[in-house]
């Protein structure tokens, strides 16, 4: 693996590249690193499998009996798995950077590519691309499961439920948004890992960021704090992108909620970039 990187380095030195080229070479190097170990592929598979499995369990367990009104958003229900797939995304993002620190590879990487921001950009782009692809498969699978199962459980158009399929605007938005959501979660956790560097602590911090706020929200009764938490915490605000019913009751609109998550991810990336730039590896 390091041989490849060395060879890459030689090319870079030979051609005295522009900034764009260095990112491109860094991308190539990072891609080589990623595809030559089996971990990332398994984790991506895990994202899709866990998301679809949890969604299928959720959809399979939900029925709307004939004599009752069901205040359920079928699209959000079908996308339940995303809340668990994101844990695997977090692990993937953390290991992408922490594995290099734990085995000392980062020193080789930075020696070969002294432009640290290019390394960061390459890793972030690659991570986001991988998670978007894996996330798209996962989300499509989840939507498909909802589309196939929910009408048989009483969620029919005749009773006023919208179809769970990509031809329906809000569902399309929720599905695409969920894929973007997973990508942003990956970048957020990547930024955290850049700052923390230790894989164990990074995973702890990342999972706490993802799951602590929903728990606090469940216990806080104060309406003002509920509103604040719903608007400004990464996962609660970000997941509003999955809502297709009762939009007026939301603390923040779906796209704005995803925007809040994007701000968190950007802040984490910037802080991580500064940490990478300033600290010794």
């Amino acid at each position, binding site marked *: 693996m390091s041989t490849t990187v060395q060879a890459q380095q030689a090319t870079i030195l030979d051609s005295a590249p522009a900034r764009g080229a260095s990112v491109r070479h860094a991308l190539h190097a990072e891609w080589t690193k990623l595809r030559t170990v089996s971990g990332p592929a398994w984790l991506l598979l895990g994202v899709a499998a866990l998301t679809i499995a949890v969604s299928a369990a*959720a959809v399979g367990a939900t029925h*709307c009996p004939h004599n009752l009104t069901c205040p359920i958003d079928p699209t959000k229900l079908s996308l339940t798995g995303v*809340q668990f797939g994101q844990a695997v995304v977090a692990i993937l993002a953390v290991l992408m950077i922490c594995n290099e620190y734990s085995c000392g590879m980062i020193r080789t990487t930075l020696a070969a590519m002294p432009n640290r921001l290019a390394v960061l950009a390459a890793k972030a782009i690659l991570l986001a691309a991988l998670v978007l692809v894996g996330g798209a498969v996962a989300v499509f699978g989840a939507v498909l499961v909802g589309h196939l199962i929910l009408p048989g459980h009483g969620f029919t158009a005749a009773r006023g439920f919208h179809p769970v399929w990509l031809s329906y605007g809000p569902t399309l938005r929720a599905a695409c948004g969920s894929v973007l959501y997973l990508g942003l979660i990956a970048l957020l956790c990547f930024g955290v890992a850049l700052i923390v560097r230790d894989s*164990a602590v990074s*995973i702890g911090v990342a999972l*706490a960021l993802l*799951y*602590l706020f929903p728990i606090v929200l*469940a216990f806080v009764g104060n309406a003002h704090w509920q509103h604040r938490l719903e608007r400004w915490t990464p996962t609660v605000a970000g997941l509003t992108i999955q809502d297709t019913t009762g939009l007026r009751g939301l603390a923040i609109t779906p796209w704005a909620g995803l925007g809040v998550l994007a701000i968190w991810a950007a802040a984490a990336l910037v802080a991580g970039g500064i940490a990478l730039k300033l600290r010794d590896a």
Partner: protein
Amino acid sequence: MTSQTVSVPRPEAAVADGPRGGFGGLLRAEWTKFRSVRGWVIGMILAALLTIFFGVFVAANGSVGCQMNGGPARTGKACLPYVPYGPGGEVVTDSFAFLRQPLAGNGTITARVIALKGEHADLSNGRAQVGSGMVPGLSAWAKAGVIIKQSTHQGSAYAAMMVTGSNGVRMQYNYTGDIAGPPGSVSAGHPRWLRLTRSGDTITGYESANGTQWTKVGTVQLAGLRSTVQVGMFATSPDYTVTQDSFGGANNNSGPSQATGVFDHVSLTGSAPGKWTGTTVGGGGPAGAQGPGGGSGTAPYTHTGSTFTVTGSGDIAPVTPGPGGGLPTVTIEQSLVGAFLGLIVIVVVAAMFFTTEYRRGLIRTTLAATPRRGAVLAAKAVVIGAVAFVIGLVAAAVSITLGVPKEENQGQVLLPASLPTEVRVIVGTAAMLALAAVLAVCLGVILRRSAAAITVAILLVFMPFLLAVLNAVPAGAGAWLLRLTPAAGVAIEQSIPRYSQVFTVTNPVQGYDPLSPYAGFGVLCLWAAAALVLALITLRRRDA
């Protein structure tokens, strides 16, 4: 190469010969390893601080708003309704229709119940419509019967024999006591005779199918009962609740209900005036449960010949967390929510406590110095468990001390816990964190890599609780997760007991876990024990 070094069996004496031999020395060595890593010490202190901060934050922000008819919106203590406390110090509901006479000294009341009828809010469309028409039907815990009560004050001591909607004959006393009699419902063809006898502080309840052959149901002591008590017939009925177990948790729709008991063959022996008075104790029921007859000081009763008809709404029972109580309630363990954040931090440190040795190769030195691998594992488990326990104890005690007074200012009724319960909640939280730490150390041994160990530990301990709290799985599945996974241990924090005679919902946010406190804690213990065994096997079998 390494395996050779490690697998050479060294005499036990070599260990004992060291300057500080035996298990004590091993403990000391592991403690030194722990305290000399600054990050771990800081992490553990951080765990305590985060636990306290989040716990108190949640406790201080549980406020619910309220608005009296047309009045200004209020928050905090102004929202608190009048809350009666029972003889045992617990918060109680005490609302019923009472047809009574004062009884001086000892005596016996006997009555035959020939019917128990009821009606409740129409929930057929899945939603309670207060004020809409009532439909016939009995709540499961609608009750009517005979009662001996200290006074008509809410919360005063009592003992009662009753027939219920679908729970047969019961003898209940002092709100929390419930003794089951024979099952079956009451009708004109199958009437039920009920009798209560007072002798000093002792009340004995009897029931009979025919009025001649009596069966004793129970004997209870009502400490400090006055010489003159109120005795008579009563009827009441708690909110009618329909639970719809859907995804996103169980939906509970409830609405008011009332019960009507029809009595005849009423006889009262002892020193009583012989004139019946109707009283509505509590002037209605719990919030929203005010039936058509409630609200006034006089109970709706009719007296035709020897037949008495009493109609009432409410309940005579302890108030429990959640929708069953009809009040916005809060329990002391709400101040311990932060323990989940502390848990994550402790799990991270505990997992690293072993995996770091693998990463740095220190494990080979450790095992060369102490070839008894089981002892190494035990020492590590004891050290990290003890640290987590102490951290948890301090964090839980401070959270409760700071948080509970804040809970009381939030417009919710604090359900008090006795001192032993409070101690159990605090020590139990500390023990839960200690066991989670032991589990994480063992996962570190089994998986060897910190990332994997932490992920698995958090998935096992934290995620089931999260799934149940967020209603991300159906209520039934969530309950099973909290029975089978290590997250069951959180039940040790449950401060209010579950009463079979009160409708309660299994929902950890509202205070009820599916398992009883010690059963849940036992499940966590089993997990920790299983992890220790598995870790011991892996540690012995594999080369370091």
